[in-house]
C-alpha cells in the first residue's frame, strides 16, 4: 500500500493513498460532521452532505464530501473555513427543517450555531419523522447483512427506506442492523416478551440458556447457520455467557 502525506487544517498526516478524507480526519481526532457514512459499508456516504470540506490541490479549490474523497499526495484539506461553515450551516438548516424531531440533527446543528430552520418544517407521519433518506440502512441490509430486505422506495421528498409494498418481508431476518446503523435513530425496533418487531414483522427471539435473556432472533440464527455452517448450539448462550 502506497503511503502519502496529506495536510488537514494545517497539520501533516500520513495515510494510505485513496483512503477517504473523513477516515484520515477521524483517525487523527479531527472533527468533521458526518451522518450517512460508515467505514464498514462500501456504498455508504455521499448522501447527507454535512461532511463538506475544502479540498485544495494543484492550485484549485473544490468543496467535496469528505466521506468519499480520496486522499492523494499534495492534498490540503480545510475543514473549518468561513465558507465551509456557511455551507455546513445551510445543509444543517435544511436537515433540521426535514426532521425537526431528531435529537441527533438538532445537536449537530446547534454545534454549528443553527437552532431554528427558516424553511417550512416537515412533520410528516411518525414512521419517517427522523429519517433523512440517506440510504445507509439499505446499504447495510444489502452489503453487510446480505438479505436485501429493504431498499429506498419512491423519489424526491417522499423517498424512504421500506420493505416491498410496506409488507413484512420474506427475507428479513430481524437482525436490526439497519436500526443500529441509522444515524438518526429513525427505524423502529420494539421488543417485548421475547418477540422483536421491526419492519412490520414479528420475530421470535432465542433465549440464552444461562441468563434467560432473549438476545437474537431465531431467523437470524437460521441465516447464520445456513450461510456459515456454524453449529447451532453456539447460539444457546448469549455473548456474555459463552
Amino acid at each position, binding site marked *: 500500500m502506497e503511503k502519502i502525506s496529506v495536510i488537514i487544517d494545517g497539520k501533516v498526516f500520513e495515510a494510505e493513498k485513496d483512503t477517504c478524507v473523513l477516515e484520515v480526519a477521524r483517525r487523527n481526532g479531527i472533527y468533521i460532521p458526518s451522518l450517512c457514512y460508515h467505514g464498514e459499508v462500501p456504498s455508504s456516504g455521499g448522501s447527507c452532505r454535512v461532511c463538506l470540506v475544502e479540498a485544495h490541490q494543484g492550485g484549485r479549490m473544490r468543496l467535496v464530501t469528505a466521506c468519499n474523497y480520496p486522499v492523494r499526495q499534495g492534498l490540503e484539506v480545510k475543514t473549518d473555513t468561513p465558507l465551509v461553515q456557511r455551507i455546513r450551516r445551510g445543509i444543517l438548516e435544511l436537515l433540521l427543517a426535514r426532521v425537526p424531531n431528531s435529537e441527533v440533527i438538532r445537536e449537530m446543528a446547534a454545534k454549528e450555531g443553527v437552532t431554528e430552520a427558516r424553511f417550512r418544517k416537515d412533520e410528516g407521519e411518525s414512521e419517517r419523522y427522523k429519517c433523512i433518506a440517506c440510504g445507509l440502512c439499505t446499504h447495510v441490509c444489502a452489503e453487510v447483512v446480505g438479505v*436485501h430486505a429493504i431498499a429506498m422506495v419512491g423519489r424526491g421528498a417522499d423517498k424512504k427506506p421500506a420493505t416491498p409494498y410496506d409488507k413484512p418481508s420474506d427475507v428479513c431476518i430481524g437482525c436490526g442492523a439497519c436500526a443500529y446503523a441509522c444515524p438518526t435513530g429513525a427505524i423502529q425496533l420494539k421488543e417485548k416478551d421475547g418477540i422483536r418487531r421491526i419492519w412490520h414483522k414479528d420475530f421470535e427471539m432465542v433465549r440464552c440458556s444461562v441468563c434467560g435473556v432473549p438476545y437474537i432472533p431465531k431467523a437470524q440464527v437460521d441465516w447464520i447457520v445456513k450461510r456459515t455452517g456454524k453449529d447451532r448450539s453456539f447460539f444457546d448462550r448469549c455473548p456474555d455467557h459463552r
Partner: protein
Amino acid sequence: MTQELSKFDRIIERYERSEESLLAILQDYQREFQYVPEEGMRRLSEVMGVPLSKLYAMATFYKALSLVPRGRHTIKVCTGTACHLKGAPQILETLERELRVKRNGTTEDGEFTLECVNCVGACAMAPVILVDEVYHGQNRPSKVMDIIKKQVGS
C-alpha cells in the same frame, strides 16, 4: 396461479437474464396489464434472482410505472397557468363528477384514469386535455365528455 405465472414468464422470456433487462420487463408489464402487478414482480425476482426490494425500488422510482391498476384510457387535464386561467378547474370538476372519480384515480369499470399535468406546451389551445396522448384544445365543461366519448368510441 400457473396460468397467471406463465403470462409473466412469457414476457420475461423475451429478454436476456441480466440486470439490464429488468426495466424493460417492468415496462412491458405496464403496457400489457396497465400496471405492474405484485405477482409479476415476485415472479421476476424469482426468475432473475434479483431481490424483490430492488425491483420495488425501481418500480416506485419511475413515473411511467404504476403499482395500481390503471384505466384502459388515460385522461390528462392540463392545470398549468394558462389552462388554469382558461377554466381548467371547471373541466376537472366536470370530469370528476361525470366519471365519478377523483384526480389520480381510476374509474370503477377500469375505463379511465384521470390525471392532472402542468402545461403540455399547447397554451394557445387552453384549456387543454389529453386523451391517450391525443390533444384536445379549447375545452368547455359542457363539451368535454362528448369529445372523450367520441375519441374512445363508447
